[in-house]
């Protein structure tokens, strides 16, 4: 500490006042008055205070001095939002052997993780023998799942996806959506053709092939427009007007409001205007049909 403690040392009893921080109104005083042993013994209580960032920096420096070879696992569980002060390199020195520790560190109440430290955290857990079971997938949720490396995603057992909660993977890059869709379609294949199938596979359709989407189009799923806009743009281009009508069903009118979305605009440009007109939702920008009164059947006969 660079200055003398003027407000008296911080002790376990001082910490009982929920607003004790008013007495230590600068990071310098907080540093001068906080003994490392008190920090070791009252980490959780201290972290219940609404501490500004520069106070957290002080606490982290003292913890680094207390634990030069890395914060021990029992203290990791108490770190709360202080954990977000650690970068990937520092996390590489942690031992994360239990899912309880991982759960505590991933608690969304304590703020959001960036990709690199999150990937390292999960790598430490897997390195200690942990598996990406469904409770862990639920903890990670969609956003963090997309942060994992493709090698880490490949290790997920389809059974874990089958038992996991809904995972929103819309923020994943396409390659990861494809991996997760592959796992999900294996996991839910027993339900294919039954009414619950669509609500099970829907979160993962961003990785679905055109062939699978055509199959869905024939089973009246009434896909919502957000799911449709998150389909793989390349696979979407391979769908016909009938496929899209089958997929969207009652939500078809929402396509008009999304006609300027890149994937939809590209799809419209590849359709005959006469086919688009059969949807009766005012889509324009399709190709002129080769025959004056051409419809898709005539086009098939013509070709």
């Amino acid at each position: 500490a660079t200055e003398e403690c003027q407000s008296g040392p911080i002790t376990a009893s001082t910490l009982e006042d929920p607003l004790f921080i008013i007495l230590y109104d600068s990071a310098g005083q907080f540093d001068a008055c906080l003994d490392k042993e008190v920090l070791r013994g009252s980490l959780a209580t201290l972290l219940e205070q609404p501490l500004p960032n520069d106070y957290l920096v002080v606490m982290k420096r003292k913890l680094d001095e207390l634990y030069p070879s890395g914060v021990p696992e029992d203290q990791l569980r108490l770190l709360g939002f202080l954990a977000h002060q650690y970068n990937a390199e520092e996390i590489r020195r942690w031992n994360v052997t239990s899912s309880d520790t991982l759960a505590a560190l991933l608690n969304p109440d304590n703020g959001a993780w960036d990709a690199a430290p999150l990937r390292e955290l999960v790598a430490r857990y897997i390195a200690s023998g942990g598996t990406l079971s469904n409770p862990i997938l639920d903890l990670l949720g969609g956003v963090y799942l997309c942060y994992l490396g493709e090698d880490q995603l490949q290790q997920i057992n389809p059974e874990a996806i089958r038992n996991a909660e809904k995972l929103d993977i819309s923020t994943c890059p396409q390659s990861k959506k494809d991996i997760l869709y592959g796992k999900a379609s294996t996991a839910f294949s027993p339900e294919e053709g039954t009414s619950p199938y669509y609500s099970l596979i829907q979160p993962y359709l961003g990785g679905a092939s055109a062939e699978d989407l055509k199959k869905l189009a024939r089973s009246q799923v009434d896909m919502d427009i957000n799911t449709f806009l998150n389909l793989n743009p390349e696979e979407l281009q391979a769908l016909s007007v009938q496929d899209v009508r089958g997929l969207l069903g009652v939500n078809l009118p929402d396509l008009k409001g999304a006609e300027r979305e890149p994937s939809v605009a590209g799809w419209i440009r590849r359709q005959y205007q006469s086919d688009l007109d059969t949807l009766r939702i005012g889509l324009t920008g399709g190709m002129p049909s080769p025959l004056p009164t051409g419809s898709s059947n005539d086009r098939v006969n013509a070709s």
Partner: protein
Amino acid sequence: KQWSSQQAAILFGNVLSRTDNYTELSAFILQGFQCNAAGKLSAGQLSSLVREVKMKNANLSDGQLSCAARLLANHNLDANFTDYPPDVLLFFPLDQVDGANCERFYSLASQGDLSLLANGSAQRTRLLENALRCFGVGNSTALRKEHLQHLGAFVCDMDASVINDSDPEVLQNLKLCPELSNSQVMALNTRLSSGTPPYNAPESWNDSTLEDLGPLAFYINRSIWNRINGQERVAFFRSLSDAYDGQSAAQKEK
């Protein structure tokens, strides 16, 4: 059982095929609303299902609400909109709202969660325009009390000048806003520092005044804070600290 929305979505189709007495369904089941299952219902069944969503205060997503609104409109059921949750009304095809009922429709819709509609989306913009036309407000930024009581959260999308030009009731509308823009925060601070009713001069505030401000208290700037009595501020923070006990660090930090 306290089903999760994922579990309820899987059960929903089977449940609908086994009963049409929807009063039996809990909010946990209703949150699983599936468009393709509801699409198979008759007009009467659909209407009583959506009514039950309102009665049980079930939480639906934007996709579910949009489908429910479209199915109701397809069945020409949008006339009895007073039976449906305000959140569903936000997704109604607005060209089918007739002039005679528009005041009732838009004041109910204004009680919905506006953040379900993307900021600046066509539907959200038209809701505000139609509501203002319906209540005869036109382009005025000086809204009277009776206007404000009907417009609810729609005021959140209006220009910040409304905050200083309108009746003090406008502060109640601002409490409904999920987030205030920078210009709205500046206008709010201008109004609060002016000392006009209902809160008068900050020097006269006590911790219950701050509590009455609700979410608006977090937008107060430093110069207003410094005008508030010191003990009242600490008392307010203590009551906040208790109220936020066990809340997330992010909320405490705010």
